[in-house]
């Protein structure tokens, strides 16, 4: 069963090439790291998959559904919450999610908040970077999706919060759902991923099983850095 199938995807924005001839297939139930330097196109790729960026060429199917609006029902993507004012409380954001997403599960949201040690009465403005990221993860896993897209969930997050976020993924990812996590480093998530997809020069340069890389190289991190040698 395929969670995602992308064929010959190209995406240009203001006559600039963002993605070029991307082909990518992800099986259901996998945890996948989407890696690449900043600006390589990771966020754009997620936005195209999620149907947020529309002017692309090629085909994108999620659980066999190509239509942008209809494939949205299978996808939950992290949101930076930048549209919410600092004075808003966590429970206000949950109210919004409940309205917009019919698959939002209140009980699950309460459970994850508790696991993350977050209080629904706290205001967004009072949250640290790590707490805010935990909230974003709690919101995304409170939805019942087939494909979860987490865009850089660890940037600016301290080590303890990172551990908590990783545990929450293992706890709340539905077994048959696929999880894509973008990041520009790999060390922290390496033990939990099945596959690595490396984006470079606007396209998918490599797609490898994490265990295979470990068997053949000193570490996944070393393998990854090898693609950027001599570029600093």
């Amino acid at each position, binding site marked *: 069963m395929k969670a995602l199938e992308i064929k010959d995807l190209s995406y240009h924005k203001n006559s600039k090439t963002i993605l070029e001839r991307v082909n990518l297939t992800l099986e259901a*139930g*996998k*945890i996948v790291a989407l890696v690449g330097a900043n600006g390589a196109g990771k966020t754009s790729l997620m936005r195209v998959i999620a149907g947020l960026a529309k002017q692309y060429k090629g085909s994108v199917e999620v659980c066999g559904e190509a239509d942008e609006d209809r494939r949205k029902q299978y996808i939950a993507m992290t949101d930076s919450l930048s549209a919410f004012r600092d004075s808003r409380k966590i429970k206000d954001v949950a109210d919004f999610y409940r309205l917009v997403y019919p698959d939002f599960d209140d009980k699950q949201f309460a459970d994850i908040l508790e696991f993350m040690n977050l209080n629904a009465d706290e205001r967004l403005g009072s949250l640290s970077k790590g707490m805010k990221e935990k909230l974003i993860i709690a919101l995304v896993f409170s939805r019942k999706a087939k494909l979860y897209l987490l865009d850089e969930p660890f940037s600016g997050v301290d080590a303890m919060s990172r*551990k908590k976020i*990783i*545990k929450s993924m*293992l*706890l709340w990812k539905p*077994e048959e759902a696929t999880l894509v996590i973008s990041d520009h480093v790999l060390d922290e998530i*390496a*033990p*939990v*991923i*099945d596959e690595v997809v490396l984006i470079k020069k606007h396209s998918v340069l490599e797609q490898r099983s*994490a*265990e*295979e890389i*470990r*068997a053949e*190289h*000193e*570490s*996944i*991190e*070393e393998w990854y850095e090898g693609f950027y040698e001599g570029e600093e």
Partner: protein
Amino acid sequence: MKFKDNLPIYLQIEDYIYLQIAQGKLKAGEKLPSVRALALELTVNANTVQRALREMTAKGYIFTKRGEGNFVTTDESRLEEMKSKLLKQELAAFVSRMEKLGVERESLTGLLASYLEDTREE
């Protein structure tokens, strides 16, 4: 637990469970924790735990009862074999480290014997 970066994790999970059995933390015929519980305990992917358990089942160290979970084999000779494999693995690592330090294989037994003599408890 901290995993080595240059060895597939499913192999390291196998070793981790073998060690628990060898130490008696998991006994013959005892039920293993669920896949999900092991994944959380070790902070690894459930698919990787599944793979480790599949390998262990194929080798006959554990067996599956449909709908009940995975159990350590009750075949004592199988468990002895597993334990001796584990010991050989440790010995191989020890010998290889000593060789890197320039100790010849022939001098190992003598060195070890005198070390054991020196550190003998009264």
